[in-house]
């Protein structure tokens, strides 16, 4: 099936903006319907079951794979022996690993709760990225390249699937980094409507992981009249000249903002949740409360039709104080994620919700100082759960010590191709024409890892 060309859609939309006598709500709905063309299964998928939404748990800083999900008995054995860098010494994980569930996946003792859900997880132990520097690797994880400004995967997913709830943003990022986070939610050349909406940032408390200004002090009717006036000026400006994607973005963002006022406050209000649910996520108190609430919020957003939710958690950059800091991070997310998987499962949402956990890279199995690990872009672990992923499965290997992907290396672009495939989208078909050529999330590369699909 050929996908509808965004360029044509924009053209017809501009005409509608100029000539239509119908209201803007109708307009935006048309846009959403046009987009939902992409939502139909792309045919090439190896599976009939597809995920309909994504929750990306983004672990900023580069979590150590050999201390969390990538069990390395050889590292225990070779503790203290020289590592690949001159003078470096291998360092065993301070934590023990055990097999869990029927699948027998290895999980570190840092994740006692999540370990109960081992049979839901699909681990890729052979992830790779190109540069062991945070900003570049983070941007690459999100957009596929750190060289150019490109849309983030959330924007592509929303573009591909369309919004399932016209009253909510289709892509939401909870507590992204305060600085440099724009590319993680950016739509680049895709229309601005595909950008992620940020809730708070990682420099702030959980209470601010919300949307201010949702409540209008005016009656809905008055506000609508004011908005019609604003939009009439925007429309007029749009009509003056071709090539004003910014103005189109403003127009769309006002319509969405207007509709969000009615639905968003309810979704953001965790007060509706029962004590049992809060407990399940560890959202009540203690070290799990902030991340627990974010996970709960994410579930509520997904439930209401948001296509792509991302939660950033940091900082996982343990050059020093690995023992304390890594343990603290794992404690903060273990119960919330376990609770989330359980909750999604019990609501029947897990089968069409794809949960992804990853950092921008991993860490070296050799020590930095005596209580730290350095960046490692040659091997890290990413896990998925839900949707049509092959549960209780582990793919690829990072060798004896976790230094470098040795078996089935998976560059980020292959993960992107696979992510889209799990959503029923052929990564080669999801294109957007910009400046004379068709662009893709995977650009000119990308291999779908059929092995990780059920």
């Amino acid at each position, binding site marked *: 099936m050929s996908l509808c060309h965004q360029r044509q859609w924009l053209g017809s939309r501009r005409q509608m903006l100029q000539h239509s006598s119908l209201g803007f709500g109708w307009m935006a709905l048309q846009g959403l319907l046009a987009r939902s063309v992409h939502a139909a299964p792309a045919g090439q998928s190896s599976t009939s079951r597809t995920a309909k939404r994504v929750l990306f748990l983004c672990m900023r800083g580069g979590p150590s794979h050999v201390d969390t999900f990538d069990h390395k008995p050889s590292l225990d054995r070779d503790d203290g022996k*020289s*590592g690949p*860098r*001159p*003078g470096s010494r291998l360092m065993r994980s301070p934590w023990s690993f055990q097999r869990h569930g029927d699948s027998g996946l290895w999980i570190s003792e840092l994740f006692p709760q999540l370990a109960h859900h081992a049979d839901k997880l699909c681990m890729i132990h052979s992830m790779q990225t*190109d*540069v062991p*520097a*945070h900003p*570049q690797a983070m941007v690459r994880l999100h957009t596929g*390249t750190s060289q150019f400004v490109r849309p983030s995967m959330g924007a592509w997913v929303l573009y591909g699937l369309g919004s399932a709830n016209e009253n909510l943003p289709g892509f939401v990022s909870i507590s992204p980094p*305060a*600085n*440099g986070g*724009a590319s993680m939610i950016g739509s680049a050349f895709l229309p*601005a409507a595909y*950008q992620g*909406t*940020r809730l708070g*940032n990682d*420099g*702030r*408390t959980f209470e*601010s992981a919300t949307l*201010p*200004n949702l409540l*209008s002090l*005016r009656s809905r009717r*008055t506000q609508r*009249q*004011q908005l019609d*006036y*604003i939009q*009439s000026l*925007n429309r*007029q*400006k749009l009509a003056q000249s*071709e*090539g*004003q994607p*910014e*103005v189109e973005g*403003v127009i769309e963002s*006002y319509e*969405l*903002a*207007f509709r*969000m006022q009615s639905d968003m406050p309810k979704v953001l209000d965790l007060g509706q949740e029962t004590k049992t649910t809060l407990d399940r996520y560890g959202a009540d108190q203690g070290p799990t409360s902030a991340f627990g609430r974010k996970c709960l919020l994410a579930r509520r957003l997904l439930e209401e039709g948001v296509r792509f939710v991302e939660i950033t958690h940091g900082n996982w950059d343990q*050059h*020093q*104080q690995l023992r304390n800091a890594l343990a603290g991070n794992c404690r903060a997310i273990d119960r919330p994620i376990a609770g989330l998987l359980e909750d999604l499962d019990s609501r029947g949402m897990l089968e069409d919700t794809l949960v992804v956990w990853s950092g921008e890279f991993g860490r070296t199995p050799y020590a930095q100082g005596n209580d730290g690990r*350095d*960046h490692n872009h*040659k091997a890290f672990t990413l896990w998925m759960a839900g949707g049509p992923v092959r549960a209780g499965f582990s793919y690829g290997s990072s060798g004896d010590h976790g230094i*470098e992907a040795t078996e089935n290396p998976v560059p980020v*672009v292959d993960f992107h191709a696979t992510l889209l495939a799990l959503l029923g989208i052929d990564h080669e078909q999801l294109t957007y024409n*910009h400046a*004379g050529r068709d662009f893709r999330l995977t650009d*000119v*590369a990308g291999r779908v890892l059929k092995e990780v699909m059920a």
Partner: protein
Amino acid sequence: MMDFQADRIEHGHPRCGPNWWFALLLFGLMMGSPMLWGQDRILGDPSTDASETAMRGSQRNVNFFESKIRPLLAKHCYECHSEPAGKMEAGLRVDTAAGLRRGGAGGPAVVPGKPSQSRLMQSVRYDDPTLRMPPEEHGGKLSDEAIATLEKWILAGAFDPRGPTAWEEPTPATDWWAFQPLPANRPTPPQVENSSWCYDPIDQFIASAHRNKGLMPVADAAPETLMRRVALDLTGLPPSEADLRWFHQQQDQLGSFQKAYVAWVDRLLDSRDFAIHFGRHWLDVARFGESTGKEINVSFPHAWRYRDWVIDAIDQELPYDQFLREQIAGDLLESSDSSDQVRRTIATGFLAIGPKSINEPNPLQFQLDLADEQIDATFQATMALTVACARCHDHLFDPITQRDYTAVAGIFLSTETLFGTASGGVNNRNGAKLAQLPGEVPSALMDLDPERIQGMKERLKQLTEERNSLIRQRIEANRKGGDNNAVNPRILALATEIADAEAELQNYRDDGKAVGLAMAVRDKPLSLRPIDRRLQQRRGGFETIGESPLFVRGEPAKASDKVPRSVPRLFGDAKQYAIPSNASGRLQLADWIVSPDNPMTARVAVNRIWYWLFGQGLVTSLDNFGMTGDHPSHPELLDALAIDFRDGGWNLKAMVRRIVTSHTYQLAAEHRAENFQIDPDNRLLWRANRKRLTAEAIRDSILTVAGIQLRVPENGSVVAAAGDGPIGAPRRAGLREEQIVQADGPFRSIYLPNPRGLLPEILEVFDMPDGTIVQSAREVTNVPTQSLFLLNSRFAIRYAKKGAQRILEAFPGDRAADAFGERLELAYRWTLSRRPTASEARSARELLSTDRDDPLAAWTLLVQGLMATAEFRYLD
């Protein structure tokens, strides 16, 4: 398909720049494509000799060497065979070209074109059991791929761009454009047919590129559009009524729009608002922030002095070279009087305001990180060069060795950074002093009664005595055989209280007068008193002026031999900038950065000015002119501007004036399909770019509509008034989150609090950076959060209401529809700098009918609506 991944050096440093060829390489490998790095393409015909090969694809050869060979040698061999490591085992050094050719005890390590005769190959192949390199204990045999790469390199002539010795490497080993000297003669502007189109030589360069690409520039912007554009570009404020009246008078007198426009530009340039707006641009470059950021975010209550210095310097037209010199070495320049000295001390705040991990437990690590941050900011801000990438290894892409880095690090490690944060509780392990400014300088604090000071001193004395006695008791007990090393919570609490009390006292003289304190730097002493030597140990060293050892892989525990302090060996004769043994070397570094030998500083500066006015740089990677950055769209224009800037006295205002009076600047933002096909990104400037106003300009424009008289806050900054303390922590000293998020006041946005990680809401919503890194280009998002802010925030409604009040005062009437035309015209002029169209008047009348009998409510709706339009925040 070859797998080169094994060859790549790992580098743990987080700031290594992106690079396009590296990505292309990986991509090529992933695709199994032969398009890149095939032997024939890169290295040329193996039978030709090295010099010929170098002549033909030197850039590719450099790239190959830098990406494949240097990392390999650095990773596997340097530790035992290089000057930086201080070891040349078997007499072999592999960190220079000559060293490799000459080889060690056993003969030449590399014979170009002849792998079989090269001892390097024999040793890495493990052919000879007595010669196996690298040895087992240093990682063992290389991968087959790595060995093949070395062989390929030798076979093709062993191209090695490194100089005769690692240290005396002459000039950049690369022909990358940004490292080339500026031409001796300014590039001649090309002749163009339509010479009347050109107002300035700038236009000839632009027009010539248009012609070459078959682009037809669009028409000029409408006068009112241009006037709004230039006012907002130069001052961050829309044109005022008075400005416009003045302009029309000029136009009548001078008889031409263009002449009046030029006169008006001068008027804008002379205004304080120009200095504020461009000062804010520089603050982005200087990664200005009012707190430490990082894990423990503690305020910098004195950072505002640096902010004000920047504004003053631009207002007083301090030449740009001097502007940079003062920021790097102001304290070392001769000052004619104490006010000069005060200013120059404050200027060095540039080096002190960076983010810091003040909870770092290892004091040596902290010092090295501090110097590293200063190196990173200094070189990126001035030269757009990522020198800090060479902290742990030679720069992977640019001609900066780890030794160069260490030579520069010595300069900063010989410098004491006075950044404050003396309080901050037990988590602050690295607080520092502040600079006491001489003479009478204004302070953000109120003076106190002398008795109060006396009381504070008493209390400090008591606290200190209590702590000392507790410590003495413990020492005594342990001496008697005890082994009590458990944490004593009282001692910990006292440490915090003492630090807080000291920090507070630091602000006042004995007579209660508030002291002028500033963030700054100064040279460390030449030697230490014996009593201070113990301190040195505690702080991890670097208490005096001296050289830095090279830290192997950047690890503090791995100090190797010391490297003499020096400016980077990139341009000019380093001897000219020889650093005396009794000075840190910041002065020499500053002189080198602005010297005529350094082509980057002027290029980087004019490119940023271009970006601030056109919304896109001639080089798009504003902060990275290294080999992983962009090529200029108009190389000759860039050089011509750089030369003019340098030779014209580094005059910022003159350069801005030239650019905004060029024809190119005055084009409309109109679309043209034919041009779009050829140059969709408008890199060749066939039209004006549509620019989103900065967050500050959006807020300031709104305040202007509301008729707020914008002034300078009396207390420097909200952060200054709150004093030392954590940012955003609830129920503690310092600043609460809402004090920052909701910060407002009758002053321009540059004066709002600017701590890291937490910004005033309107600034955050419209993408202001928080100053964690040098970031000259603003990110732009276009999201519903912004719409919600403009529709529903108290801020938007409050100021819209004030604007509406002004309109109703100008044209009174009881009903919303009274004096409709006059009121509407005012509303449009103030918000959009133009008159309403007939259809807009109809829509406005309709909107006003919502609240016929409450003119204020109705006109508030309308004014707010105008401030919420795309036209208000996007500049055509």
